[in-house]
């Protein structure tokens, strides 16, 4: 199951920090995403793109998860080594395009 088929999301940034918001379509999918997208798993998903610790915040009332990466954008947008400025506007697709196993949170859940 593709994360972006059960959730919407948006990327933001402040200085060196990247933040990714995910909003689930139902309480059931919120709970699935909450169990599956642990900070460790999200760090593994984003590692091929950047290296940063992850902080996660839960907002059950809005069916939302918030991931903050304090070292993803070293030096801020001007110091970026990407082509052009503001690559981070697309960073939410790191999560939206991720395929969860059919039974996320179960025994067969794998990283990657």
């Amino acid at each position, binding site marked *: 199951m593709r994360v972006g088929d059960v959730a919407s999301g948006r990327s933001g940034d402040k200085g060196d920090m990247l933040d990714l*918001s995910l909003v689930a379509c139902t309480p059931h999918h919120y709970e699935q995403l909450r169990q599956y997208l642990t900070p460790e798993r999200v760090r593994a998903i984003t590692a091929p793109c950047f290296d940063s610790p992850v902080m996660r915040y839960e*907002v059950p009332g*809005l069916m939302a998860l*918030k991931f*903050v990466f304090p070292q993803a954008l070293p030096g801020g*947008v001007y110091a970026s*080594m990407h082509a052009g400025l503001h690559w981070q506007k697309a960073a939410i697709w790191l999560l939206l395009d991720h395929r969860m196993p059919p039974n996320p949170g179960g025994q067969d859940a794998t990283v990657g």
Partner: protein
Amino acid sequence: MVRPANAICSVGAGAGFAGDRIDPALALVRSGLIDTMALECLAERTLVPAIKARADNPQAGFDPRWRRRLSPLLPLAAQHQCRVVSNLGAANPRAAVQAISGLCIELGLQQHRVAALVGDDVMGLQTHIQWAKPWQGQLIGAHAYLGSDLMAQALHQGAHVVVTGRVADSALFAAPARMQLLDQHDALAGALAVGHLLECGGQLTGGNFEPIGGANVPPPLSADQYARLGYPLAHVYADGSADITVVPGAPGIVDVLTCTLQLLYEVHDPAHYITPDLIVDFSQVRFEVTGPQSVRMSGARGKGVPPMLKVAGFVEQPGVLADVEIGFAGDGAMARAQCAADVLRRRLDALPAHDCQIDLVGIDSVLRGATRPSTAAPSELRVHISAACGDAATAQWVEDEVYALTLSGPAGGCSVRSEKRPRLAVVDGLIDRQLVPTELVWGQP
């Protein structure tokens, strides 16, 4: 919806960044639904060119687009009894207030009163700034994020236009409500939540919005609708709740999802969003659909006034960042581009690996190693290199090596684009708010 009688103010978002479209603000004023137009024109980075312009000319350093934006807006706003609040004063609100006062006279608005909020520039208070981490290079500017109190005072004293430098974006929108709120805690938290929702303009009303399952369907608005996107407005109530909607007659999407995404945008801990006016808890916010394109927001909570103000510092580091691309097209473009990238890696191997990034635009330049593999070979793509260079000569060498591919690399290297940027870092700090003197400066006609 018509303007509710019990709203304490109705505020529109006419711009979400310095270069934003001009016409959405005019449509908002023409609707007759708003009494205050807020224009957010000062992203974190936008201060840098303004600081440099002010260094060259003490009368410059505010948004160079000010005349284009305000000339059509001010007469229309006067006609509809709508005030204008904006941070387009950038690095020099003191100069901006004089320029805008002059423009008012040109436009026949001799009675207009224009106020500037000054005091955000804290370069003179450097020794009191607590930086989040050490940095190297030359500090070219340091600005504290100010709150809404003096902006509210200026409006209360009859300002038609209030111009600022660095303030919290949310404060621009909270200012018109501030004097009439029931309390300075939860109600102010609500007004700040409104500001946070509106500060990015069209991003609340369907812009930059990926719907659930968006990969399987066309974008949620048509090209014609994006081209005419309506910007948001809010009717704010004394308890800090608000009705959020889009300017009537214009396309847009205002629903629980678009509001939720914008509420969480660039917020770190949603239960502890720090603004200069108040620390706000968004975690109990509720959105309720109240009509087509209309959502009721309530439930923001205040958690006290922070003792420190956030400071953004800009640090120039020695050297230049070269960002250069070369294109390839036609059958076999992928193999020729990959080969060209490998040629560059060999030619530039004197550069330290961590100072050099080479990838393929169209393949993996954005999400890098996390990009999902493409199923078809593209018939055109670009090789990109970014190199952090110690000096301008090295950056020129990087550009020259890319150009040299057109004669000495794989066939068809074309469409070279090159940009050389100063190496500039944004650094965060904090300063005791008691140490930052702020005041209103009124324009002299």
